[in-house]
């Protein structure tokens, strides 16, 4: 197993290399002149030339690429132009809020989605099923920031149950930390819930039609045991796969959610970098998040053997 994990980890290296090539080519072949954009509207040509030198944009493309890949291989994501510090250390200062948000969203969304999906499949073609499927379509359609402001308006401004915005570090207590994360997790998780609930319902429908479910029912297994132990566990592989693919939704949504709820995380770092045209930060975070996505999906692959022991590595 360990040898297999190591082999798979090594196999992600080519994927990461391709990610690096794609990011580099897309950003460097785009028609805009980053030096001119960064310098702003009132820059002199000398100014622009200076920025171009500083970013190394005056070098030939292949040399820029090799330099950048060399940095990446040493774990250096580049240097912020505005802060003049390594991107990695900026990310290090801000990872906690983002990680907290991601983890609470995962917990909330997966619990909610599995419950809804199992209910819809169990009560297929009833009003329960229709409501869940309708909710799923809605979840795909309402953007993160609209849900976010709606939640803030209802639960924070009107009912005053939860704080409007902001983040409290976990060191200051679990309860204040959680209170600040409830609304952002719901807003960020909505589309993810819709995605997972849909695949859960679809796979559960297939599994519930199997003979061993009829056998379980016939021998009098309690309904909840039948649904969770017999059916859901056998439906796990496609569901886990979609959970892994759907992490892309969370990664994209985190940037917007942190802006709506004023959470000082990695997403905010990127948004602030847009206004300052601090493009090494954006580029570095893209590579970082792509890497996380690849690793999450590797972990998903490895988890198959836990859910389905017939899959062996």
């Amino acid at each position: 197993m360990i040898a297999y994990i190591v082999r798979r980890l090594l196999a992600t290296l080519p994927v990461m290399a391709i990610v690096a090539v794609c990011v580099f080519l897309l950003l460097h072949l785009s028609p805009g002149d980053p030096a001119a954009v960064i310098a702003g509207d009132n820059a002199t040509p000398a100014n622009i030339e200076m920025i171009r030198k500083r970013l190394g944009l005056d070098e030939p493309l292949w040399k820029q690429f090799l330099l950048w890949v060399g940095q990446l291989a040493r774990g250096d994501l580049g240097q912020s132009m505005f802060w003049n510090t390594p991107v990695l250390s900026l990310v290090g200062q801000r990872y906690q809020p983002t990680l907290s948000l991601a983890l609470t969203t995962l917990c909330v969304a997966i619990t909610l989605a599995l419950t809804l999906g199992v209910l819809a499949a169990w009560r297929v073609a009833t009003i329960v099923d229709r409501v869940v499927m309708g909710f799923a379509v809605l979840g795909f359609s309402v953007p993160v920031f609209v849900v976010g402001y709606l939640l803030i308006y209802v639960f924070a401004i009107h009912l005053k149950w939860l704080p409007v915005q902001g983040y409290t570090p976990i060191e200051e207590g679990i309860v204040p930390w959680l209170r600040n994360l409830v609304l952002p997790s719901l807003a960020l998780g909505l589309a993810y819930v819709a995605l997972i609930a849909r695949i859960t319902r679809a796979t559960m429908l297939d599994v519930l039609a199997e003979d061993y479910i009829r056998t379980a029912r016939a021998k009098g297994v309690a309904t909840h045991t039948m649904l969770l132990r017999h059916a859901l566990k056998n439906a796990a592989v496609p569901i886990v796969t979609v959970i892994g693919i759907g992490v892309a939704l969370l990664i994209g949504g985190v940037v917007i959610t942190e802006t709506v709820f004023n959470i000082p995380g990695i997403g905010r770092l990127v948004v602030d970098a847009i206004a300052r045209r601090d493009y090494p930060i954006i580029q570095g975070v893209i590579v970082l998040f792509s890497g996380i996505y690849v690793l999450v999906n590797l972990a998903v692959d490895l988890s198959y053997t836990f859910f389905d022991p017939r899959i062996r590595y």
Partner: protein
Amino acid sequence: MTSASPTTIAPKAPTTTMGALLVFARRNPTIVIGGSLLASMVFLAVFAPWIVGDPLAMAPANRLRPPSADHLFGTDHLGRDMLARTVFGARVSMIVGVSVAILSISIGLWIGLAAGYYRRVDAIVMRFMDGLMAIPGILLAIALVALTKASVWVVVVAITIPEIPRVVRLVRSVVLSVREQPYVDAAVAGGSRASKIIVRHILPATINPLIVQATYISASAILVEAGLSFLGAGVPPEIPTWGNMIAAARGRLGVAPWTIFFPGLCLAVVVLAVNLLGDGLRDRLDPRIARRM
């Protein structure tokens, strides 16, 4: 869902056009609901200048007025009519939704056909697509917009690039299943050129799934555009879009919730309409996928 119940007894053949329409509506409620919602939004967007007032006219004396007979959607912090701004905001969303769908499909289609048909192309292209899929689309779009001067077309291209791998994978999967069909073997045996086989015998099989995919791409493009505008990485700020209207209003949620509510509602309704249309088309045109979802 309609295709899942082939056993239902077919109703008597309708005799009038009206009757035919009603039967179609009963069998495909999502196509009709989504389609008509979308059609009315497109109508509003196209004829915006003749329907509502000037979205840019400021009237500082009238700032932050709640909805009233004069201003159905109220006014924003510069006294601009929110109804006019919301209706004009539909334009950017529609343009982006349609252009991204057309552009990503016309690029992805050919890459997908080549990858599905030629094994050697497949190995290289699909590795690149995997890499592209791992890059968070909205961040890539942010970077591309931040590096160039903001314009609607930069936004369209920036949203299109991350959508291409999805089209390529879809087309490739269709090609892989179709190329083993006897009629393709027959065409090969008959000595047709590869290009002719692809265009005449394989391309048609990709059209139905692509129509369905086009609606989903439009929906996601409209959402991403709104997100980019909201983050300040979208079209130039002087063009009213639902995203930048919400961004401008976000500090006033407690005082003037209508400045966020109406653009947000329109955004949600349009994306919902496109998604409903997509689900309906999927059930009708692509039963293979419909059965799985």
